[in-house]
């Protein structure tokens, strides 16, 4: 299990500076700030087209105090692989490669490169910050958008279910796969620390749910509240997959029992993207959450 990460373990040093171009309440910017505090200055950041391309602001300014390579949308994990090869050849084993891509860049256009890198087990950390749609282009549905959520290309709600990239990653049998949520920064930080300090070389993948005020349509000050509800309602499960075993982490540990979860409608009702749901739609999503937990319990008992 992950050793508890305490707030005291977060260094005061900042590697992303204030005054960047993120939207108010942006969970992706918040999480990147924490990630770089955990990984430290000897980290190279690889980012594809994503909100992070905008958050960096205009050249020649940058909010990042680590080297950043912006790469083509589909190529994050491939670029990371080239970096790993070069750093390995140059004997720079102390420099970490952090790929940081959105859900579009991970679940959709970047999946091929990610799968290739995972199969080759490239020695790097890949974080998908999942805000569940193409937010940088203004909220179009992605493969990672949950069912029923309204986006600008699914105006009556997305008919299909969310694709589980963490499970796709588990199927690659690399050293570490975890989910996280921006509203539980210490859980996320602990997972990153674990990924970074594993003696086993290979790809470590963290799928981070990243609530998005403009895209999910909730007030900017409610990012953490929405993220907490995603986890406490059981809509988003925090777990790790390591050594062939699944472990629940953080508050999710106590949520296998359905009665301990907050009602799903608490999560849905504070977001505009679910504002159109009927009672029947909500019940159907509740069933989906329950099914997801049953499936997870089965996987835990099998491993």
């Amino acid at each position, binding site marked *: 299990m992950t050793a508890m990460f305490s707030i005291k373990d977060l260094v005061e040093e900042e590697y992303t500076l204030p005054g960047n171009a993120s939207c108010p309440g942006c969970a992706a910017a918040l999480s990147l700030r924490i990630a770089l505090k955990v990984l430290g*200055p*000897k*980290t*190279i950041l*690889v980012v594809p087209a994503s909100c992070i*391309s*905008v958050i*960096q*602001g*205009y*050249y020649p300014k*940058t909010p*990042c*105090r*680590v*080297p*950043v*390579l*912006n*790469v*083509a949308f*589909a*190529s994050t*994990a*491939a*670029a*990371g*692989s*080239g*970096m790993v*090869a*070069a*750093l*390995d*050849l*140059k004997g*720079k084993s102390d*420099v970490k490669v952090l790929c940081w891509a959105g859900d579009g860049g991970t679940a959709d256009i970047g999946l*091929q*490169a990610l*799968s*290739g890198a995972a*199969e*080759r087990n490239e020695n790097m950390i890949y974080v998908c910050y999942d805000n569940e749609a193409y937010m940088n282009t203004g909220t179009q549905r992605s493969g990672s958008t949950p069912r029923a959520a309204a986006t600008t290309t699914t105006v009556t709600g997305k008919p299909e279910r969310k694709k589980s990239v963490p499970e796709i990653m588990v199927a690659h049998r690399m050293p570490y796969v975890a989910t996280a949520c921006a509203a539980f920064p210490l859980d996320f930080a602990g997972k990153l620390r674990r990924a970074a300090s594993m003696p086993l070389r290979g790809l470590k993948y963290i799928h981070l749910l990243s609530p998005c005020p403009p895209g999910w349509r909730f007030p900017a000050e409610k990012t953490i509240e929405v993220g907490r509800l995603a986890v406490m309602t059981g809509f988003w499960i925090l777990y790790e997959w390591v050594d062939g075993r699944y472990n629940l982490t953080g508050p999710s540990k106590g949520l296998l029992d359905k009665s301990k979860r907050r009602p799903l409608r608490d999560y849905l009702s504070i977001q505009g993207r679910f504002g159109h749901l009927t009672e029947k739609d909500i019940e159907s999503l509740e069933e989906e959450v329950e099914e997801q937990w049953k499936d997870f319990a089965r996987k835990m008992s099998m491993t």
Partner: protein
Amino acid sequence: MLLTGNHAVAYGVRDAAAEVIAAYPITPQTQIVEKLAEFVEKGQMRARYVRVESEHSAMAACIAAEACGARSFTATSSQGLLYMSEVVFWAGLGRFPVTMAVVTRTLAPPWSIWNEHTDILSQRDAGWVIMMCENAQEAYDTAIQAFRIAEDERLLQPVMYGLDAFTISHTAEEVDLLEKGDVEGYLPPLDPKKLRVYMDPESPGTFGNLVGPDMMMEMRHSIKEAFERAREVIKGAVKEYERISGRRQAGLIEEYKCRDAEVVIVTMGASSGDAKDAVDALRERGVRAGLVRLRVIRPLPREEILEAVKGAKVVATVDRDYSFGYGGILGGELAGFVKNTMCRFVAGLGGRDLTPEDFQGIALKALDVAEKGEEREEFWWGLKR
């Protein structure tokens, strides 16, 4: 050493001490990256080999490796080059001095593995130096020269070089290899400090974030200026290579019997050898023919071409490529600055054979057109009706 063009490239890349190879197989290029995998696995090269899942990833990996200071190489053909294209532009516009061999092959549909030059020419606006090889020896030589040209501080742009499918890629010829010490002097290890983009945690920088309309033109202009210096960089690299190899090298263009020529054929790639045979045969028949072989396509060697064709009655361009709604690509480009009468031929598409007899016919047709003052855009040579 008896080597195919593909293996000649692999030996060149080995001798140039490439450090990261990222590649994906495609006919007829595959033997290049197979041979390199063998060199790396057998410890004959100190390099890392990334067995990527696509050409798009191959170039992305090369760019990122280069950004970490590693000399990087890939090879592809046809569909693979087009699939890679987004990242080909990324390398050019981002000024990453990667090198790449392109075994030129017809684009589908319908499927074809045979030779054509449309694939490599489709990337001509990508910010790469583009060269074409005539034979296996030149493929070896170019593989080494390409790194020196790309990494030259005055340029720092990627370099791709074409080899015709099968005619060069799979045909074995005697190839002279350089001595290790000679290559080391010619091509010192890549100094990451001189790179435009270097991912150094000691001196962190952000590459590629947003640039507004206030600065983009100047950035593009700096690449334009680099390409203006490219001519001197290439000439210098070639001259120095002549010195260490003791072998003559073509520069931006190769002129063959152009001085008194009334008709000058313009070609690129493998069939230039057949065109030279045609020039010889025509001269025996009393026709003063000459040939210009373009070894470098980008930067386009305008001055060298103008000088070579200045006395000619007619210039006959032979394109093994085509831009629909425009014409043969080289013919079209030359028409932009050549003042002589021009006769533009499209020939050998999809790997159709182009013989010395064809080139004789092309030269005679061009002379005939010039004498009659016939106005015609282009001729599809050998088209079956």
